[in-house]
C-alpha cells in the first residue's frame, strides 16, 4: 500500500504523537535493562563482603552471617521439578482434550473455568493449601508436617496449568486442518491422528508451553512461601519431598521486610533476585526465540 496523498504541510501534533508512540514501543527494552541494572546495583556489593565460594555453601543462617544459597537453589529446583512433573502431563492431556476431543458443551465449561484458575490470586491458593490441603497431606501421606515440598509443588502445578494449557492449545490450533484430514482419510483412528500427526506437528509449541510453565513455577512466591514450611535445609534424600523446604522466592519475600537497607543480608537478597532474574530470562529467551519465528500472533497469546 503506497501513500499517494498530496504533500501536506507538516503537522506538529501528529509528529509529536507518533514519536511518543515510538518511545512507548522502545520502552520495553529500556525497562528490562533498568530492572537488571537496579538488581545489579543493589546485588553486586555482596561480592565485596561474601565470597562466591561462601555463597555456594550449604548453610543459610543470616543471623550468623552465613549466606550459603545452596539449600535455596536446590529447594527451588526440587519444588519446580516436582510441579513440572505433575503439571505437564495433566496440562498437555487437558489441552488435547479441549482442542481435539471434547464435545462443544464440555469446551464451553472447561475454558472459562481454566481462565478462572488463572485469575485466582496466589495468596488465596496458598491460604487454602495451608488450611485445607496440608492437613490432608499430613494425615494420608504420613509426613511429620503438612507443609512440605510436595504441598508446594501441588499448588505450583495448578498455578502453572493455565499457562501450559493455553499455550499448548494454541500450538494444536496452529496445526493445519489438512494434516488431520489426510491422516483420517488414510484410515487412521481419531486417536492415532492425534498421537502420530497432530501432536508431532505441534511439537515446538508444546515445548514452549512446558518452558513457560517451568518459568512460572520458579518465580511463584506467595503460595510457595505459605505451604512449603520454609526450612532452609538441603533436600538431598528421597524423603525430602515430604519435608519442608525453602525456595529463593520465599526467602526474598520473607526476609526483605526485616533487613536494614545496605546491610550484607540486604545485598545478598538482591543477589538471590539476580539469580532468579537470570534463570527466568534464559528460559523465556529460549521460548521466545521459537515464538518470534512463529509471528506476533502466537507471541501475544503467551502472555495473557
Amino acid at each position: 500500500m503506497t501513500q499517494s496523498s498530496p504533500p501536506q504541510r507538516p503537522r506538529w501534533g501528529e509528529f509529536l504523537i507518533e514519536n511518543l508512540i515510538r518511545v512507548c514501543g522502545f520502552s520495553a527494552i529500556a525497562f528490562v535493562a533498568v530492572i537488571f541494572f537496579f538488581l545489579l546495583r543493589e546485588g553486586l556489593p555482596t561480592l565485596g563482603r561474601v565470597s562466591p565460594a561462601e555463597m555456594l555453601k550449604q548453610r543459610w543462617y543470616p543471623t550468623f552471617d552465613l549466606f550459603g544459597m545452596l539449600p535455596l537453589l536446590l529447594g527451588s529446583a526440587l519444588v519446580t521439578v516436582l510441579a513440572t512433573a505433575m503439571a505437564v502431563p495433566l496440562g498437555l492431556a487437558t489441552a488435547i482434550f479441549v482442542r481435539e476431543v471434547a464435545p462443544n458443551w464440555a469446551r464451553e465449561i472447561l475454558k472459562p473455568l481454566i481462565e478462572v484458575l488463572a485469575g485466582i490470586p496466589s495468596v488465596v491458593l496458598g491460604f487454602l493449601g495451608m488450611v485445607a490441603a496440608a492437613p490432608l497431606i499430613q494425615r494420608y501421606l504420613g509426613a511429620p508436617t503438612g507443609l512440605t515440598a510436595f504441598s508446594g509443588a501441588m499448588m505450583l502445578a495448578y498455578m502453572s496449568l493455565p499457562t501450559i494449557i493455553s499455550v499448548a492449545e494454541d500450538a494444536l490450533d496452529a496445526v493445519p486442518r489438512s494434516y488431520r484430514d489426510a491422516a483420517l482419510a488414510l484410515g487412521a483412528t481419531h486417536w492415532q491422528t492425534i498421537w502420530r500427526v497432530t501432536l508431532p506437528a505441534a511439537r515446538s509449541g508444546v515445548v514452549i508451553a512446558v518452558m513457560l510453565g517451568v518459568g512460572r513455577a520458579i518465580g511463584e512466591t506467595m503460595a510457595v512461601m505459605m505451604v512449603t514450611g520454609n526450612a532452609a535445609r538441603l533436600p538431598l534424600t528421597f524423603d525430602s519431598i515430604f519435608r519442608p523446604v525453602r525456595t529463593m522466592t520465599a526467602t526474598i519475600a520473607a526476609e526483605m521486610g526485616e533487613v536494614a537497607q545496605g546491610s550484607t543480608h540486604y545485598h545478598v537478597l538482591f543477589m538471590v533476585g539476580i539469580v532468579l532474574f537470570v534463570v527466568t530470562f534464559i528460559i523465556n529467551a529460549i521460548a521466545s526465540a521459537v515464538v518470534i519465528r512463529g509471528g506476533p500472533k502466537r507471541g501475544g497469546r503467551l502472555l495473557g
Partner: protein
Amino acid sequence: MSRQTSEKIAFAVLTFAAISVVVPILLVLGYIVVQGLGATSWEFLTAMPRSGMKEGGVLPAVIGTLVLTFGTAVAALPLGVGAAIYLAEYARDNWLTRAIRLAIINLAGIPSVVYGLFGLGLFVLALGMGTSIVAGSLTLGLMTLPIVISTAEEAILTVPQSFRVVSISLGGTRWQTIRYQVLPQALPGIITGVILGLERAAGETAPILFTVAAFYLPRLPTSIFDQTMALPYHLYVVSTQVPGMPIDVQFGTALVLLALVLSMNAIATVIRSRFRRRRQW
C-alpha cells in the same frame, strides 16, 4: 489390542485428566464461598479492623486494593497502549522489533517478587518515594505492562485492513487513520485486556510487600505518598503472621479478595462476548 480399544483407553485418560484439572478448581471456589459467606457481612466490608485485626472489618484493605488497581491502570494504560500501537501499526519486521518482542516476553516472565525488589531499589529508595501508593502502583504497573501490550496489540491487529485502506485512500494521515478508524474498533478488545491485566495486579502480593503494603493501618490513605493496607497482603498477614487469628476473618478476607478479582474477570468476559456478537466484520 485393537485400534478402537486403544482409542477408547486414550480418550478415557484424556477425559480423566481434564476432570482432575477442573474438579479442584470447583472445590477451591466452593470451599471459599461456603466458608467465607458465614464470615462476611456488611460490617466486615465497611468497618475498620479492630483489636489487632481480630475483629472489625477490612475496609482499609479493600480501599487500598482499589486505589492500587486504579494507580496500576494509570501507570500501565498509556504506555501499554502506545507500545501496542507501535508494534501493530508502525514497527517493521527487523531486529529492533524482534528485540522489543523479546523484551516484552521477558518482562512477562520476571518473577513477581523480583518486581518487588526492583520497586524497592528504584522507586522506594533511589527515587525517594518511600513505601507509598505511588511506588506500589508503579511497580504493579510495570508488572502489568506486558499483558496490556500483548492483548491491546492483538485487539488492534484484528481490525481488518480494509478500514485502514479506505481511510488512507480518502486522504487521512496515518495517525488520523489510527485515531479515528483503528482505535475505536479495537477499543473493546483493549479494555478487556486491560481489565485482565488489572485483575492480576489486584491479586498480587509479592510486588507490594516492600513497596506499599502496611501490616496494620486502620485508617484510609489520604495521599499517594501514604502506605496502605491491601487485600492480598492482608490475607497473608491474617493467615500466617498473627497467632490466634479467628478462622472467620481469614476466610472472610479470602472471599472478599476472590470476589473482587473474579468480578473483574467476569466484566472482561462480558465485554469480550458482547463485542464479538456486535462487530461488523
